């Protein structure tokens, strides 16, 4: 389903056409099972068919060492890997580890920034899926309880 949809998108069909596609096809787009998984392994198995990823130093992950506020943790990801299809953010110690999965279309560079929530100190893993496999890197972000901060 995922592949079929990407094929359609790569063919450059307008969004209006996609919106007209059967509901089931669109529903497949938001991977509900992966998002409801309670462990990183489960989430990756559901999302990519395997939790096996190749560690790669071609992925750059910018996250703070100590999060100022676990509710807003800036994250920037970029990679020099080619033919990137998706980029996923997995916060291992969150109750639902999969935070986001970005589908990168041709012409779009694999350079993404966002802000995520972290319930506690955790490794943040980024998985980049290309046409040749799944690659990953991870960094620990410490989340602390505030002192006063009014």
């Amino acid at each position: 389903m995922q592949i079929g949809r990407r094929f359609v998108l790569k063919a450059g069909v307008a969004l209006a056409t996609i919106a007209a596609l059967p509901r089931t096809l669109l529903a497949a787009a938001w991977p509900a099972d992966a998002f409801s998984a309670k462990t990183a392994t489960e989430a990756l198995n559901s999302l990519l068919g395997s939790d096996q990823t190749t560690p790669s130093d071609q992925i750059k992950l910018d996250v703070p060492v100590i999060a100022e506020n676990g509710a807003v943790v800036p994250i920037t990801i970029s990679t020099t890997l080619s033919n990137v299809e998706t980029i996923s953010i997995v916060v291992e110690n969150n109750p639902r580890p999969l935070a986001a999965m970005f589908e990168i279309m041709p012409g779009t560079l694999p350079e993404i920034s966002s802000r995520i929530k972290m319930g506690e100190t955790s490794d943040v893993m980024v998985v980049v899926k290309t046409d040749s496999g799944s690659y990953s890197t991870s960094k620990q972000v410490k989340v602390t309880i505030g002192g006063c901060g009014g």
Partner: protein
Amino acid sequence: MASNIKIKAKISGDLVEIKSLMIHPMETGARKDPETGALVPQHHITQLTFTHNEQVALIANLSTAISKNPYFSYKARGAKAGDVLKVSWVDNLGGTDELETVLK
């Protein structure tokens, strides 16, 4: 009325950097209402789509682990002034919002 989505785009050469910020509570479903003590139901954007001239550029599939009032940025090639950029989202409760802008 002020839109609930904002876009900033910066073209340099054939590269464009797109930043977007939107108002959404991104409720986890685990937070209690401070007044009533009742759990606030989960309410989050599930899918966010960016298109350039009606071609899909980026789809972000999201969970509640994206911060309140979500922010995203990305870069794309082949952009030029006059291109139409559109951001749209749907959330788990059927809510939607979108914003269209012309690159300058």
